[in-house]
Each structure stands twice: as structure tokens, then as C-alpha cells.
């Protein structure tokens, strides 16, 4: 996808405020109680539904996602089949619901890789500085210089085409973003007055890291991680579209769209999973935005 790393830093202040942790926490609690916009509630509702689908798919549909009735193939959406049926007569709604877990998991894997690897790189670079910082900076520069979707395609082609590998590839392509956000957060916090005070009071480097730097940095990393979750869903869907995702009979959303596009006469095969994908990503983006503005 073209939507990537420019987003977080595109907004001038992406959470780089220098207020102490205490004030932030209080502010957020208040905002939770007092001014949560309706769209944010709706976004949370969509995300909750998606989580429920992935945990308890059986509760939401009685159709079997794998076994179809061949005679019922290519039925348009109806009361019996909310999203219609596919080329083997399988219920598309059931396939979307049962594919949720895999779609959500792979996006989570991607984000986890980005947060852990990128976070660690950024943390080390920012905290240790000097030669470590210089070497890691070149590494991040290289990752940054390769368009992230191209990078994901190259990585997935090396690992082999399936969804877990697509998730890993997506995660690798997000490492640079997390690394530089983490690094700048660490630098900002390190030079903050309260951290200097702590150091003067005799706190060790690691105490400062654990007690002050990490909690402060985690804030903007969390907001970025939520945003990246939405992006990862799109990137993995894009990889699936190009044929680098899981093969059937898995039913990830991206894969469903990718298979569906081969049957233009049954457009619901594309639009049903696509609408679910868009709704999910939109909700996640909304939540990320809300997290950013409720500082």
C-alpha cells in the first residue's frame, strides 16, 4: 500500500509533547469520561465485533466456511446468505467471519514485529547514542529508502508465499517507522527536565530507561501501533491481491477479495470482504486519531 510511514510524522506533533507522565494520564482519564465522540464509540463497536468474530466465529454464523453446497453456487446476498455464496456454494459471510481470526492475527504479527524490532532499534540508538546510533541509523536509512510495499514483496518472495510470511514481511517493512519514532521519543524524554532531575538524584541509566523513558515513549508508539494495525491489514490484503498470501481454502479477507476478483459476475465476492476490511481499517484509524488528540 502507498499509505505508510509518512502518516505519523506528517502531523507536526505526533505525540512528542514534553509533559510528564502524570499529567498525561490524568488528562486521558478525564477525556475518556467526558468527551468520547460518537464516531469513536462506533469505531470501538466495529473493532469489538471484529474481535468477537475472531474469538467466537461459531456464535455469529451456523454455516460451515469450508463445506459448501455445490448446487447453491454464486447466489447473490439474501436472508439465507448475507454476503451470498462463492464458486463452490460456500457462504461468504461465514468465510468472512471465520477468516477474521487469521486476518487479525496476521496484522497483529506484523505490528508486533514492527514494535519489537523497530522499538528495540530505536531505543538502543536513542539511549546509547554514539557509534551504535550511527550504525543503526544507516540500517534504518536503508529500510526507509526501499518503498515499504516493495520491501514487503521482496521479503515475502524470499520467505515463500503464505499469510504468516506476508505478515512478517509487512512487519519488516514497518520496522523503520517504529525505530525512528521510538528514537526521537527517547531523545526527547532523555533531555526532559524530570529525567535530568532523576539522574542528578542518582538513578542509574537503566532505572531512568524503565521508569521514565519507556512509559513516555510507549504513548506515541501505541498510537502508531494502532495506526499500523490498520495499515497492515491493507498491506497484507495487497500482498494477497498480488498472489503472495495464503492459498485457499484459508479465508483471510485479503485472500477472499483476491479470489473474488476472478469472478466479476459475482461482484459480492469482492465487495463483501472489501467492505468489512474498509470498515475495520477506518475504525482502527479513527481510534488511533482519537488516541492522538486526547493527550
Amino acid at each position, binding site marked *: 500500500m502507498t499509505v505508510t510511514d509518512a502518516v505519523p510524522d506528517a*502531523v*507536526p*506533533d505526533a505525540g512528542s*509533547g*514534553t509533559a510528564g507522565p502524570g499529567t498525561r494520564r490524568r488528562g486521558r482519564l478525564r477525556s475518556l469520561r467526558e468527551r468520547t*465522540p*460518537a*464516531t*469513536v464509540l*462506533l*469505531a470501538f463497536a*466495529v473493532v469489538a465485533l471484529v474481535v468477537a468474530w475472531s474469538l467466537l466465529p461459531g456464535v455469529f454464523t451456523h454455516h460451515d466456511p*469450508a*463445506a*459448501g453446497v*455445490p448446487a447453491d*453456487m*454464486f447466489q*447473490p446476498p439474501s436472508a439465507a446468505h448475507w454476503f451470498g455464496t462463492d*464458486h*463452490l*456454494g460456500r457462504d461468504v459471510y461465514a468465510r468472512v467471519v471465520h477468516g477474521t481470526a487469521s486476518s487479525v492475527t496476521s496484522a497483529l504479527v506484523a505490528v508486533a514485529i514492527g514494535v519489537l524490532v523497530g522499538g528495540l532499534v530505536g531505543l538502543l540508538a536513542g539511549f546509547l547514542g554514539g557509534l551504535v546510533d550511527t550504525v543503526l541509523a544507516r540500517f534504518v536509512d536503508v529500510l526507509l529508502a526501499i518503498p515499504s510495499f516493495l520491501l514487503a514483496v521482496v521479503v515475502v518472495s524470499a520467505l*515463500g*508465499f503464505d499469510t504468516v510470511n506476508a505478515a512478517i514481511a509487512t512487519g519488516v517493512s514497518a520496522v523503520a517507522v517504529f525505530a525512528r519514532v521510538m528514537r526521537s521519543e527517547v531523545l526527547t524524554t532523555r533531555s526532559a527536565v524530570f529525567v535530568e532531575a532523576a539522574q542528578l538524584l542518582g538513578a542509574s541509566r537503566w532505572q531512568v530507561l524503565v521508569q521514565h523513558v519507556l512509559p513516555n515513549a510507549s504513548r506515541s508508539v501505541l498510537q502508531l501501533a494502532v495506526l499500523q494495525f490498520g495499515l497492515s491489514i491493507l498491506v497484507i490484503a495487497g500482498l494477497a491481491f498480488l*498472489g*503472495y498470501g495464503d*492459498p*485457499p*481454502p484459508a479465508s483471510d479477507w485479503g485472500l477472499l477479495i483476491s479470489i473474488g*476478483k*476472478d*469472478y*466479476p*459476475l459475482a*461482484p*459480492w465476492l469482492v*465487495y463483501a470482504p*472489501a*467492505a468489512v476490511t*474498509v*470498515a475495520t481499517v*477506518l*475504525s482502527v*484509524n*479513527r481510534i488511533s*486519531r*482519537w488516541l*492522538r*488528540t486526547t*493527550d
Partner: protein
Amino acid sequence: MKNPRPARRPHRAGRAVTAAVGVLSAVLVASGCTAGGATGAGGGEPQEGGDLTFLIDSLGDTWVPNNSSISSFQGHVWGHVTDKLVYVDAEGEVSPWVAESWEQNDDVTEFTLHLRDDVTFSDGSPLDAAAVVANLDIWARGDIEAGINPIGLFPKTYDRAEAVDATTVKVYFSAPTLGFIPTLGYHGSILLSPETLALPAEEQADLANDIGSGPFVVESWADGDQVVLTKREDYDWAPEALDHEGPAYLDSITYKVLAEPSLRTSAVQSNQAQVAYNPSPQELSFYEEQGFTVAAPRYLGFVNGFAVNTQVAPFDDVRVRQALQQGIDRDEILSTVYTDAWLPAESFIQSNVPGASDHADEFAFDPDAAAALLDEAGWVEGPDGVREKDGETLSLTLYPNPYLATSQAVDELVAQQLGAIGFDVDLQAYDVVTYTERIAIGSDAVPAYEITRSFIDAGTVAGILTDADNGEDWFNVGQGDERLNELRAGISTATSVDERDVVLDELQSHVLEQGYFVPLTQIVQRLYLQSPSLQGVSYNGVAYANYYTAWLDR
């Protein structure tokens, strides 16, 4: 440096979602009722002129002729730019082309080819005996140190060829090679100018340097994008079997790459092109109703089916193998995944192969019989419907063949059908790269290998049955089946087709009775959706469309 935080109003995300869904459902209706293309009447007199656009999934990898000639994509272009020594039609009938006639000795080890004397390459040089010898040598041996591969399917028994005079070639083999003449009509056996053959790989890879003698010449090409062919006005040596002489009717053919199958069919439907290659079979009936033509020529070769690994439990038990054969409902596969143009398998080779016989009764769908066989073999139904024996479940992993687009859908259906008689079937699909690395015939991890393979001569079958003479040993029986060894020897040493056909019939029975092979359907690997204005297309033994005889009704 500090930046003031901009104030942000809450976004109306909810509204946007509703709007998006609205747009999508509008599209859903719109694209469901796309206007159809023109419906045209068939028949009539061929018309001269016209430009054909053929939409294709890919134009394959390299254009080095030897390295690409059997590709399902480049084969289309080669078929129009080059000629062959003989023509093999869709029924496997061999007829003269550049070779006017031929003889063989009694041992079938020496052949004499008599060539036409009027054939020229498009650069004006003659296609004579010396040129044919150069081609035979490069097919058999390649020039590996120059990056030119041999043609793997060319008989390995080839010894040498010599030009007796300008129009006579003598070819020698080290063992009886009944399949030599049919092989000359195979898509690998394309005749190129000796000058082309002498070029290094990186120059042969430029299609513009590849000089053939066919009815079309390369006008222009771009890697992975398109190839434009224009007709050769002085072409006058078409095979008699095609019923057309002189130059082609069409002025030009453009092979244009469009990777998405749905876009190819939509483009033909909206009259942007005349042919879409490899459309999705399940959409064909819709297009046929709108007046479009569907061509589903079968190639000569093996049917689509599973070669069973007889060394892997539980398939070392003939009863379990037979249960596989009888547990698959081929009619349901045909009606769900395919259309009327597909045929059920009658044997493990396609029914248009000369020498193929009808053995459909020996593996007909009979779930009760299949269940009885499994009971007898000791596999009893467990609580969840999956059969068990000695604590093991009756499981099977299928690996859909990535070279056949419909393979996944077929295997998903097979998994359902075998599930009904107590198998626990898993599907593991791979892309081509991973598949070729991990999935091999006879490997322990692969109990059933899905076959899609063409051949031009039934003698090829001898090479896959056992491991004798470097055979491929599809069923992993080694040489442990005496009867199979006898039949294999009978086929490979046969010196006449009639003699061989008798053995071939017995062989088909034996392989099917033993459950070595589980046939699915006859295979159509090359599928064409055509505008009704396109007439007179012919298909050869390997199912390539030939537009030399075609014309556009305008």
C-alpha cells in the same frame, strides 16, 4: 522545537462507512448487468485482413527458443512464427508439413525424412536438410555452455542426424524410438534458422532475433507486455491438414498481457479484444449465453488425476487406493467447477490419445462400495465421522497443482467428497516456486501427486511406470510389480503402433485396477473465450489455437 497542537474535530467516521457501503452496493448492481458484446452468426466465406488481439495471462519468462518452446504462453507465439516437420492434430493424427514424407527401418532406429524444397525462413535463407540437422542437434543436446537448454522431452535415444542431400535427412537412434515422428509435431520441436541457433542465449532471448519460417513474423515486442505479429505474404507451405494455402487471412495478431483473468474476459465482453486466454471456467456459461464462443480443446496427454504413492501408509493397501477412486464423484466436479465442454476421465490418459481405451467402469463413483472397501481394510468410522485404525486416523493431504488454475477448486470439492466416506482431507496449496521445491512425485510427504502433463505419443507412458531405465516411477513401486514390468517393457520395445496398442490397453486396466492412479477429469489446460466475430480457428494436438486459418467476420 515545539509545535502547537492543532485542534481536531471528531471525524464523522461512521458516516463515511455508510457512504462507502452505499457506493459498493451500487457497484454490485451495476457490474452484475454489464451490457453484452455483439452476437455474430457463424459460417460464411473467410474475409481477408483484420487485426486480432489475444489477451494472455503472461508471456512467460525467456524467449530463448529451446528454453521456452514448451511454455503454455510462449508456445502461442512460436506456433505462428515457426513451422514444424510434421503436423499433429487434436486426435493425435500425424500428417506431413515441412517433411513431405518419411520412412523408418524395421527396428525403428533409423528414419529418413524427405523435406519440401520451397520452404524459406523469414530472412530468406532456405529451410533445407542442413537446417533440419542443426535443429535436431540443438533439440537433443542444447548448448548448455552457451545457455541453451536441450528439449527435455526429445527422445533421449537420439544418436545423430545427417543431411543426405538438400531435401533428405537421415536420423539415427540408439534404440527403437517409435515416438520420434509424433515428437516432431510437439510444441518443443520448432524449426529455427541455423543462424538464430548459433547466437548466444542473451541474443536469442531477444525475440526479434529468432527467425522462423512460419506464417507470421515478429513486428515488435516488449518483455512481459506484448508481442505483435504480422503476416508473411509469401508463406505457402502450410500443412495440408489445415485446409488452407498461401498467406494467413489476418493482417496481424497482438498478444497482450493482462494478468487478471476477470479483466481479460471483461475486455473481450466489451469488444476491446477478440480472445481471452484462460478465463475462469465457471463464468463460461454466462458468456456463452451472450453469444461468445468458448473453445476448450483437449491436449494429448495424461488426464488430471492423482498418482498414488504406494509406499506411504495407508495407501500401501490396494483397497484404500480403490476406495479413493470410487469415493470421488466426477460428475459433481464437472458440474461445479467446469462446464459441458469438459469430459469425465475414461482412463488415466486422455481419450483422444491414439491407443486410449475406455476403462471408466473400473473406477466409477460408488460411495457404498468405497465405504465397504475401507471397512474391509479395517478402517472403522470414529465418533466424528473420520475413520480410524489402530489409533491412526484415515488422513490424506492434497497439494493442488499450481500449473492448473482450477486445481484448487477441484481439490476442495474432492476433500468434501472423500470426507463423506470417512477420510480426513487436508489441502496445502503452494505457489509454483514453493511447489516445485517441496512437492515431488514419490516423496514420503506426498501420498497423492496431482498430474497435469501433455505428451504427443503414448509411448511416453513407459517412462513413468517404474524406475527401470531412469523411469519416473510415479507410483513408487520400483520394479516390484512383475506385471507392470512386463507391460512397460512391451510398450518401450514395441516396433509397431498396433502391437503397442494391445499392450497399452492391458496396461491401462492394470494401473487402474491396482488403484495406482486416481483419475479425475480429462484436462483442458488451454481455454479460450472468443468474440463471435472470430472464425475458423484450428487447434493442434497440444491444444494451441492456430490463427493461420482464422478470420474476422466484420
